């Protein structure tokens, strides 16, 4: 079975049009054509005439949940989400950044998306590998059945196996490349702090220059801040101009959180993020 992107695009347009016509939402977050067909851009449709510009193809990888926090509270928003994007929406609802009742979630079950920079197919090595949106009001297209090609945490195995010194050498090399453009945090739907801890000057957590120690501080702390909140959409690594495999670390932290606290991020709007929650019977073993 393959995904019929044209059909999804059509139903997305129809749904957006209907919602705007009925006045149920004031904006629709979707995609539009960029400078060519292979490079679509996030798009905000505000008028019925805008709907024509909406596109959906295999390069529409951007996580639109990133834009939710930009609009004033109470704005009625319809948002087109893929599987991991819907988890971001759930996580934002959990953190009270958006209200469930303000959102109309247009779920898109999809697989085989392609990275517009490299043209490679995105699989569960770099993302969560779920096919169907977890939360939706309207499902555009048909549910996809089947298991991910690679288990979502499968890619970690080889890195967990290697010796810790080799792992450090690996990360040192990767972080050294960082140019501190902050595309990772800006592309991340869960990174909405203003100011970000790294921009504070008192206390100054890390240096601004892209040297290894400042980079290490920035990335490690960012991984920590996203512990139990990262929904594994892989946007950070795709946004990175120097290809740092940030998804690896995020996956590792997500996996540990899931194992320790028995809850994955962004799966249910009733959950609380694991690090702002506790159980009295949490085992001390997690500290070992």
């Amino acid at each position, binding site marked *: 079975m393959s995904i019929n992107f044209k059909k999804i695009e059509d139903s997305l347009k129809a749904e957006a049009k209907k919602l705007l016509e009925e006045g149920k939402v004031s904006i629709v977050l979707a995609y539009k054509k960029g400078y060519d067909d292979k490079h679509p851009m996030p798009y905000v449709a505000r008028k019925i005439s805008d709907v024509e510009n909406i596109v959906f193809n295999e390069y529409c990888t951007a996580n639109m949940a990133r834009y939710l926090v930009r609009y004033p509270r109470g704005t009625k928003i319809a948002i087109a989400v893929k599987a991991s994007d819907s988890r971001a929406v759930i996580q934002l609802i959990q953190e009270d950044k958006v209200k469930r009742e303000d959102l109309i979630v247009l779920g898109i079950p999809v697989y085989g998306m392609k990275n517009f920079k490299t043209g490679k197919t995105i699989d569960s090595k770099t993302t969560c590998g779920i096919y169907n949106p977890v939360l939706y009001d309207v499902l555009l297209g048909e549910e996809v059945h089947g298991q991910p090609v690679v288990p979502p945490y499968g890619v970690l195995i080889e890195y967990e196996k290697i010796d810790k010194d080799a*792992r450090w050498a690996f990360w040192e090399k990767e972080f050294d490349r960082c140019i501190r453009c902050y595309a990772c945090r800006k592309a991340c739907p869960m990174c909405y702090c203003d100011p970000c801890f790294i921009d504070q000057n008192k206390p100054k*957590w890390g240096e601004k220059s892209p040297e290894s*120690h400042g980079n290490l501080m920035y990335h490690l702390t960012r991984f920590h801040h996203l512990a139990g909140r990262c929904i594994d959409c892989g946007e950070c690594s795709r946004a990175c101009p120097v290809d740092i495999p940030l998804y690896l670390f995020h996956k590792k932290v997500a996996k540990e959180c899931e194992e320790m*606290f028995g809850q994955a991020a962004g799966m249910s709007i009733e959950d609380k993020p694991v690090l702002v929650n*506790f159980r009295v019977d*949490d085992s*001390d073993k997690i500290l070992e």
Partner: protein
Amino acid sequence: MLFEPKILGIACNWCTYTGADLAGTTRLQYPQNLRVVRVMCSSRINPSFIFRAFQLGADGVLVGGCHPGDCHYNTGNLYARRRLAVTKKILEFAGIEPGRFRVEWISASEGNKFAEVVTEFTKQVKNLGPQTKFKIEQQPSLEKI
């Protein structure tokens, strides 16, 4: 020369810090490698403190808090437990030896335990040797350039 590790201790004001006091007043012997920072609660510990400590040259970090259930603020250490567990996993995946970071629950009356933990932890860190991975190389001092 024998390697003497630098160990940062972050101790909660109500239990571990008082426990350390007790260890002192009862004249228990424990290694001098520990430098203690007092915080009001173990949940006040920002994980960045720990990353920063390793960057600034700590060979080990020991965090002390009240026993779960005994927190002066009722639930502080229960949050801290989860948070520090994540910190530990992050350090481990980045390549820091897990033995360099430890969380212990030590109450105000457990001066003995405090001395024991510090002795044992120091020994452990000593065996691991100097921590060089996170440590920032110093800017050359003015005299050298």
